[in-house]
């Protein structure tokens, strides 16, 4: 309760600083519009922003979930089978060097104008950091502890679930927090390839119409979605990795 009050207070303060700075320093609208102008723009067509928000949120969530599952699975497989890691990890790395935006047409050709096409891009950006960090986390487990458990007769599965995965979780969560932002990027960029709803569409329309207020309105939506999602992941981290980071 107290925390949410503090949060509300902080937001109010940030808003006041924004509004005040623009008025006091006489900042041009094309550089930074007043917050109230941005909010008024959202209030003028709330339906458009809400449906865009929802649509992008769904794409992000699907892509993030798929990216997490596949990423952790990849990490486990690579940990167990170094030959696959050696063969595939370089290819994964290469795949991550490709800017998806260059292949907008290919994405549309392969996945059509569907929600899935955006989720696929969100997935594509998320799975790699999760893979790498899962692998790193698994490798960071002290081999002596593994040997100890083994000497007690623990099976490979037990060692994995009781020792290695828990030890890797903090590392995995670092990637998940990154992935939370990346999957949103993926969804938004995906919407640039000829979609009709979404924050990405709003952003693009605003950008090319040079409507700075609408750009900020879309950025605000993205910020709310991004912060909310990030907070969820961080909350999950605190709940799950309670033994981890200590403050």
């Amino acid at each position, binding site marked *: 309760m107290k925390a949410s009050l503090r949060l509300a207070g902080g937001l109010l303060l940030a808003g006041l600083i924004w509004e005040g700075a623009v008025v006091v320093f006489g900042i041009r609208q*094309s550089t930074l519009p007043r917050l109230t102008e941005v909010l008024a*723009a959202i209030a003028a*067509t709330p*339906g*458009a*922003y809400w449906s865009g928000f929802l649509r992008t949120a769904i794409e992000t969530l699907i892509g993030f979930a798929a990216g997490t599952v596949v990423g952790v699975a990849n990490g486990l497989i690579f940990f167990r089978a170094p030959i696959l890691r050696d063969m595939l990890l370089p290819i994964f790395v290469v795949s991550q060097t490709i800017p998806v*935006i*260059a292949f*907008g*047409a290919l994405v*549309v*050709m392969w996945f*059509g*104008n569907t929600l899935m096409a955006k989720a696929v891009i969100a997935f594509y950006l998320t799975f790699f950091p999760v893979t790498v960090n899962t692998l790193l986390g698994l490798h960071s487990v002290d081999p002596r502890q593994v040997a100890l458990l083994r000497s007690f007769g623990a099976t490979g599965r037990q060692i994995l679930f009781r020792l290695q995965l828990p030890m890797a979780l903090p590392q995995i969560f670092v990637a998940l927090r990154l992935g939370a932002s990346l999957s949103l990027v993926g969804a938004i960029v995906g919407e*640039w*390839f*000829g*979609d*009709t709803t979404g924050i990405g*569409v*709003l952003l*693009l*329309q*605003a*950008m*090319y*119409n*040079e*409507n700075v207020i*609408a750009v900020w*309105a879309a950025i605000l939506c993205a910020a709310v979605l991004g912060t909310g999602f990030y907070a969820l992941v961080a909350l999950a981290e605190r709940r799950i990795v309670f033994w981890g980071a200590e403050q």
Partner: protein
Amino acid sequence: MNRRHLLTGLGAALALPAIPRAGAQTLTRATLRLKWLTQTQFAGFYVAVQKGYYREAGIDLTINPGGPNLLTENLVASGADTFGLSGGTDSVFAARERSLPIVCTGVMHQQTPFVFVARADGPIRTLADFRGKTITTWFTGANFVLLGMLAEAGLRPTDFTMQPQQVSVTPFVDGQIDVVTATRYNEFYTLMTRMGRDKLRVFVPDDHGITFPRDTVIVSEQTARDKPDMVKGFMQASIRGWRDALRDQKLGVDTVMAVAPTLARPHQEFMLEEAGKLMVAGPAATNGLFWVDMPTIQKAHDFFLRNGVIKAPLDLAAAYKPDVLAGIPLADRMA
């Protein structure tokens, strides 16, 4: 009300919209890929969808917007989209030169839709004054039009600086560059609202003998060959939609704004009005909307050939199909 009644009611509610759907089983599904984001530049297509003109022509049409780095020719050639509204005669040339199997069945803008803009109070009064100046333009065809115009004014490419123009006209508004490229219906509006019409000096390609019809309707060669009736029906319905949108521009703007509510209405009104002017200009005045004017296209083709933009002559008769429109009575094509 017991559960059975509820179910019956639900069934009836579901059956109702199913009635037209049952009759619509003869509809052919098709998509139209626009060249850019939803805006009134494409109002007529949205009106035709809303009024059911495509359905009457037997087409269940979905409109897909375009975006940066999406090329309509590419998506139509690969079959991802049925119809396309693509860049213009120039992009059709480029696609045909690279053997993309697409044909053009209609042209929306009969005049070059873009102009080159300088400051009215600046040093640029004629094309010859472009010497030593910095110009931004789109490297998608407009650059060649500009090069051609300036060549005829006696300027060589080394006499001025030409830079790519993307996203924003702000560098021009801020005085960082001397000449900017603007479509009559879009960037020009931004320039007008930010600087004032009387502050702008406009150079029109058509005044210098260069006309590039743009916003071309394309289909794949296969569709044109196998489904000529659908292509004809599409053109007919599109013309009907555009007629309504041009006659009742409020309807046109309303229909588009319903799809993209965050757009700025005054800008969209201006856009529809200006795009409409381009659509009824020149040969369209006597031949109707979407007219494919072969002499103009031939001239544009020869201009590109002369400037080395296309390496070898193209078979224009294979690339442009005015006969689809010719099959529709002239009275039905007039705006």
